[in-house]
């Protein structure tokens, strides 16, 4: 935990993707115009969210297997940070949509289902806070989390692909991958996924450390 190299690495990657994302060449596409650069900032938010929710499920499973309170706290805190990233993704997506699809919310399949899956995780936090007894709370929350994760993945990644959606890569729309100029974008987009995930993980560790100190003080 005392090592800081990965924090510096994450910061450098994020700074690189921001500068490169604003300055490097992008494909010239109608309607999208320069907003295609949003891809470097909007999509990594979702990727960071996925990373954090995956960490959460990992610790929920670990909690059910070993029953350590620490793992329960890790699961909750990573969901907390993941929700922040999902809200950032939703807001940035709405702004992007306003200027390319015409509305902040066009009731697109993917928009609706992501809203539903964010609500799923709100329900997780509410459920967890509603139970007073610690062991019971941790167990129920962990089981709920294990069910919520695959539902979120199906809602966000699978179902939108089966019907028509404004999002690229869904329904009849081609993914951004299908544009032949996309190789220029990959050198920014993929590092952005990694960089923002590292930053998200970092914030999660800070939250977890605060939480465990609070927890110790409560018990003393």
């Amino acid at each position: 935990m005392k090592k800081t190299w990965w924090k510096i690495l994450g910061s450098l990657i994020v700074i690189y993707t921001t500068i490169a994302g604003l300055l490097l060449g992008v494909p010239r596409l109608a309607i999208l115009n320069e907003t295609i650069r949003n891809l470097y900032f909007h999509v990594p938010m979702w990727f960071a969210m996925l990373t954090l929710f995956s960490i959460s499920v990992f610790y929920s499973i670990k909690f059910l297997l070993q029953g350590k309170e620490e793992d329960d706290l890790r699961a909750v805190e990573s969901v907390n940070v993941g929700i922040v990233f999902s809200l950032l993704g939703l807001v940035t997506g709405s702004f992007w949509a306003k200027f390319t699809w015409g509305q902040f919310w066009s009731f697109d399949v993917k928009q609706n289902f992501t809203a539903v899956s964010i609500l799923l995780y709100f329900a997780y936090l509410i459920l967890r806070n509603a139970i007073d007894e610690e062991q019971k709370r941790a167990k129920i929350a962990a089981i709920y989390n294990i069910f919520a994760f695959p539902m979120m993945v199906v809602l966000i990644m699978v179902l939108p692909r089966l019907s028509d959606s404004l999002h690229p890569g869904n329904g009849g729309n081609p993914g951004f991958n299908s544009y032949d100029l996309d190789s220029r974008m990959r050198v920014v987009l993929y590092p952005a996924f990694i960089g923002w995930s590292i930053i998200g993980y970092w914030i999660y560790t800070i939250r977890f450390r605060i939480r465990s100190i609070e927890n110790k003080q409560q018990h003393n």
Partner: protein
Amino acid sequence: MKKILFSLILMITTLQLFAQNNDVEMADALRSNGKIYVVVICIVVILLGLLVYLFALDKRLKKIEKENLPKN
């Protein structure tokens, strides 16, 4: 000869496609007079500020963790 001519014609038609692509409006003016860099600098300053803040928070938390350890 015919083959070469044919492929040349094909190539020219694709050139036209590229030209069409260039009609899409981009922030070329901002880029050509260098003002895009002002935006980039602003965003990078904000990002750097937030990251430095995050490092500071981390440092402070480390201190608190050290203070809390000996008691337990």
